[in-house]
């Protein structure tokens, strides 16, 4: 059982939680994740460790409510407990130093970049984060990111804040020389279509690019193979070999197709949850 010490909304569908998980906080490295199960009978879902504090034993997770389990988590209040949490899982990414490192985040991805970018800054790297959202109110942790990146580039689809357009358009401008200048290394975390578009952009420009893949997972220990992805023609388990992989080698078609395996069932679970909520 893991206690929720703090819970606050970041957007209408995204919440930040700080939970007491001292062993995980102690062992965590930037870029790793946990798997949680919210209640008896619940699914196990992976969530990135957005931040950790070894001293207080707290870790931060940022959750976008997209389906049954993430919404169920959203129903828990400060002081209540998450049934199961295991981690830290996966490997921290290896990011070469020296150049201009650009993190591209969409959805929960900007939050997932937080401690990674801070660590890079502490290493003395020149960093930029490009964060995208549909509109201003959906941007998350912009202030926090502002403190820890050399540059923050905000993109909204409707132009309500920052650059009007997709993160990839802004990335392309930078590649073409717009300040803060072309990247030497790109880290992409976010929805699959975004990571795929980023990969296309960096590939054309010959820029190294790592992406944090988010396939469906169960155990997170390498025991089921459900999280398998094809990278460079080889089958890899994202939970133990990843979640970061060389984006240029990833078979995105397959990854996207596999992520849709349970769309029908997910809708059913969500409907079931709604009707239970209606009955209550």
């Amino acid at each position, binding site marked *: 059982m893991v206690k929720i010490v703090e819970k606050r909304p970041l957007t209408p569908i995204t919440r930040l939680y700080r939970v007491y998980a001292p062993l995980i906080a102690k062992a965590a490295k930037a870029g790793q994740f946990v798997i949680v199960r919210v209640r008896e009978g619940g699914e196990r879902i992976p969530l990135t460790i957005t931040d950790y504090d070894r001293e207080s034993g707290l870790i931060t997770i940022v959750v976008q409510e997209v389906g049954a389990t993430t919404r169920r988590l959203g129903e828990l209040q400060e002081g209540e407990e998450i049934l199961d949490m295991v981690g830290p899982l996966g490997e921290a990414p290896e990011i070469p130093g020296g150049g201009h490192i650009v993190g591209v985040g969409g959805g929960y991805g900007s939050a997932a970049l937080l401690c990674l970018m801070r660590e890079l800054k502490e290493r003395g790297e020149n960093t930029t984060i490009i964060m995208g959202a549909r509109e201003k109110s959906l941007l998350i942790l912009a202030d926090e990111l502002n403190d820890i990146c050399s540059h923050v580039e905000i993109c909204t689809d409707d132009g309500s804040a920052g650059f009007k357009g997709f993160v990839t358009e802004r990335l392309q401008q930078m590649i073409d020389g717009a300040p803060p200048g072309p990247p030497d290394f790109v880290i992409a975390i976010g929805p699959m279509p975004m990571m795929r578009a980023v990969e296309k952009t960096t590939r054309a420009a010959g820029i190294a690019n790592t992406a944090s893949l988010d396939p469906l997972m169960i155990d997170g220990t390498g025991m089921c193979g459900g999280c398998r992805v094809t990278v460079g023609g080889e089958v890899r388990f994202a939970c133990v070999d990843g979640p970061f992989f060389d984006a240029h080698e990833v078979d995105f078609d397959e990854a996207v197709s596999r992520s849709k395996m349970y769309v029908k069932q997910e809708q*059913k679970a969500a409907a079931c949850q709604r009707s239970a909520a209606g009955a209550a």
Partner: protein
Amino acid sequence: MPVKRVDKTPMPVREPSMRAHDFEEVNEGYCFSHAMFEAERCLRCQDPVCIDGCPVRVPIADFMHAVAAGDLPKAAELLRTANPLAAICGRVCPQEAQCEANCHMTKRFGPVAIGHLERYVSDWEMEQPLNDEVAKPRREEKIAIVGSGPSGLVCAGELARMGYVVTVFEALHAPGGVLRYGIPEFRLPNSILDWEIQSLERLGVEFVNNVIIGKTLKLEQLFGEMGYKAIFIGTGAGLPKFMGIPGESLNGVYSANEFLTRINLMQAFEFPQSETPLSVGKRVAVIGSGNTAMDAVRSALRLGAEKAMVVYRRSEKEMTARIEEYEHAIEEGVEFHWLTNPIEVLGEDGWVTGLKCLRMELGEPDESGRARPVPIEGSEFVFPVDNVVLSIGTRPNPLLHKATPELKTHSWGGLLVDERQVETTVHRVYAGGDAVTGAATVILAAGAGKRAAEAIHADLTSDREEAGKAAN
């Protein structure tokens, strides 16, 4: 009492047409009179060889005697002393290749039903009232067990009985290892595993779930800041192999581990009340022929598959599953396609539509001494299927030894152990079960856990004596 030279008393089972649609236990168990009658069949041999077939040397002859005399408490005591997981082994041991293979009755009348009686007596024991006192450790030394499969459970229990302070760390959210996530409830109900775990808790064993040693905690932390004096690694062989044939990542293709974990650990059969989904279509092909394959194919039937089949490149003779599971699978309507080698999973729009196979024939013996299956030229054909479940074996999980380079392994991933078959290449770190042998059996894992407990006790005793001498 006259010795009864009659056939083995059959195990009462539920009707195949009924049981193939739910996850209730297939075998109903002997009643008292079945048990008495069956125990009477034991010949009381001068030289009981059955015991040599049992990896943990259950004193079978004495046990039979106690059952026949109606002394169930004594029978239970004999059993449990030798085999702490008797209720489980009575259900899942491949008796036909172990104790019962050696029985003198086997040739003419069929063996004495050692497994069925073991189950009967253990089930009787589980119904007895318990005192819920939790035992207090009598020693100071703390021992950490990594993994809660049969090897870890037995090692924990033996050490707790010797008075040590024992903690079991488990990566998943529930203890039991394969007994929890692999073997389905129609063969091994969770209630039995839960009872075994509760008995260990009453012995004072502490269970800590959701901790992955090598990730959440390192071995050196267990020894250092946490003060454990010895560690037992029973992490199993859970890493699934894939075949490397085209189409393996199509939607609808599962490793048997994923398929069974979704069902057993995550209760996908109760979806959507339980929230983990599983996609089972009308036609399911399971590749492989071991216990895991049988469990997967019979689970597929129970989840509504109309055609559930096993596809295996060798012949029936080379099948590795327990004979009882094979027979039950046939009764339930599972199809078996022997000498059939899958070469490609076919798909459309990302989903499985078929399994392309080659027919095989048996050729010269291979390295394993078994006849090598060779493809028949031009015999390619396609099974139209909605799911493919791969059950072609597993390897030890590299997670812990990747985090602990001093922990040396064989090239295939099994942990190296000393001549006593217990201690790893790290001082006071012991290992047993599938993590050492590769995928094997519950009773071999249980036996390894017991052997390790004895070695840990011996080594810590000598450490204590050394320390005592040094202090004087």
